[in-house]
């Protein structure tokens, strides 16, 4: 099978996801609004009591952007299990289409949605008084790091969904995502935590991205030298979960 077919198959599967959006605009809107709500809630309601270096909104926005990338895993898992549950994947697998085009379509759609989410959230953050001070290149670099983290979480989500198999089981995985998201420096500086917790938080891959993004935005909480970690952590996760997910998908029939 030629490369042209592979590209065409992946594009067809991406279009399928886009058609879903056109069908369910409300759901898409809710998906975009939820992180904005979190941002507003933490910025104005919870934020008052936080001790962080500098202005809290400037600290919070990069953290929330990072958290949104991690929580994107849930949407990916839900979409994958819903497909498996419906039997439509059986039809795809019984057709002479490119191996993995189903997964590529999922990945492309999720990345597009995440990019849209980043734009909306930075806009709302701007309205709340958040400013980036790093210049356009650093700004683009920060968005790149965020999307890289999302890309890694996406393949983790696909793999976990294929392992869990059923939508009911996804919920139990989701419960584990929350502490992973919150045990980070997204909302609070590790300096304000008990020593052991602060250490755990520093080692959370998500914290690496949040710190590097803060640095690139010129926001408080950033530290130089974290960009490498923010590239390596997601790449390590990708190196683990991408082959696992593809292999698992191929072996669905075993």
């Amino acid at each position, binding site marked *: 099978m030629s490369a042209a*077919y592979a590209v*065409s198959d992946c594009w067809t599967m991406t279009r399928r996801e886009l*058609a879903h959006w056109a069908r369910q605009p409300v759901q898409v809107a809710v998906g975009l609004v939820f992180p904005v709500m979190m941002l507003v809630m933490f910025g104005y309601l919870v934020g008052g009591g936080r001790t962080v270096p500098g202005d809290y909104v400037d600290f919070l926005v990069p953290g929330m952007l990072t958290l949104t990338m991690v929580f994107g895993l849930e949407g990916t898992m839900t979409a994958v299990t819903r497909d498996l549950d419906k039997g439509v994947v*059986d*039809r795809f697998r*019984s057709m002479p289409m490119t191996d993995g085009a189903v997964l590529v379509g999922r990945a492309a759609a999720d990345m597009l949605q995440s990019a849209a989410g980043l734009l909306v959230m930075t806009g709302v953050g701007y309205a709340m008084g958040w400013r980036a001070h790093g210049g356009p290149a650093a700004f683009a670099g920060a968005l790149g790091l965020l999307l890289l983290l999302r890309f890694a979480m996406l393949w983790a989500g696909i793999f976990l969904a294929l392992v869990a198999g059923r939508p009911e089981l996804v919920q139990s995985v989701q419960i584990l995502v929350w502490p992973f998201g919150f045990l980070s420096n997204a909302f609070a500086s590790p300096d304000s935590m008990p020593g052991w917790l602060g250490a755990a938080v520093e080692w959370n891959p998500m914290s690496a991205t949040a710190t590097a993004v803060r640095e690139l935005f010129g926001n408080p909480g950033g530290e130089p030298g974290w960009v490498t970690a923010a590239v390596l952590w997601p790449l390590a996760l990708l190196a683990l979960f991408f082959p696992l997910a593809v292999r698992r998908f191929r072996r669905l029939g075993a």
Partner: protein
Amino acid sequence: MTEGGEAILMEDVHKRYGEKRALAGLDLAVRRGTVHGLLGPNGAGKTTAVRVLATLLRYDGGLVRVAGHDVREEAARVRRRIGLLGQHAALDEALSGRQNLEMFGRLFHLGARGARARADELLERFGLAGTGRTPAARYSGGMRRRLDLAASLLTEPEVLFLDEPTTGLDPRGRGEVWESVRSLVDGGTTVLLTTQYLEEADRLADRISVVDGGRVVAEGTPGELKTRAGRDRIDVVVRDADRLDEAVRVLPFAPGETAVDRDRRLVSAPVRDRMAALAETVRALEAAGIEAEDVALRRPTLDEAFLRLTGADARRGEEAAA
């Protein structure tokens, strides 16, 4: 190996899920251009067999060829030649019928224009042309099944697998699907149909394999299987258990076909001519002076026929016939 005329060939196929043997040496040969029924109860291995044939499931041992190609070695070639209608609608139910057919058409590499033209044609043929943008989730069960069937026919497959195509449909939806399958076969497609309904196999299939416990326990035309499974029986219950053996001796039944249940004091045998058998039985009992508590003729129900074919009787029948 394959003799040219076979569209589906399974030889001694095994598949195990942990401890459970789903296929235990299944043999199946389906001639090109015919409809073959796989009949069996839940858990007999019908769906497993179809999933193996449709390249969706790996099997542990044996030989499986579809349209002349090995499903393990040449999965891509097999996939270009088959259509699958699974037990559950294999559709994207958030999308309309047209969107589904165009998407699957593109994935079969018909090209954008080709996929659109084919979708039009199939929507028309399956009476779905007026459905517009309505998502498949809001179709009736029968409509969804027809759309599913249309999706299975995008490339006019050589071999079509229908896994319990009418389970869960009302009689009208069932009729619609039967109609579609019949018109297909006229076009020369080979069809493998699994079903729990004897009636469905009877109406659609040229030959039937009865499956139980992961293997074929009986095979033949619907007519052959019905005569074997569906004969009327006469049941005689004697009052005195001690005279049961004597009753068996005097009754005009063929010894090989007579079943005796001592606990219920019952002698039972299949009959051809109902009235003659009843008269002869009563006469024989009177002549021997054996008192009967009950003499009854009964037609086996569809369920009984099915149970007999898939239960121990079928195995005994196989051995007797062999």
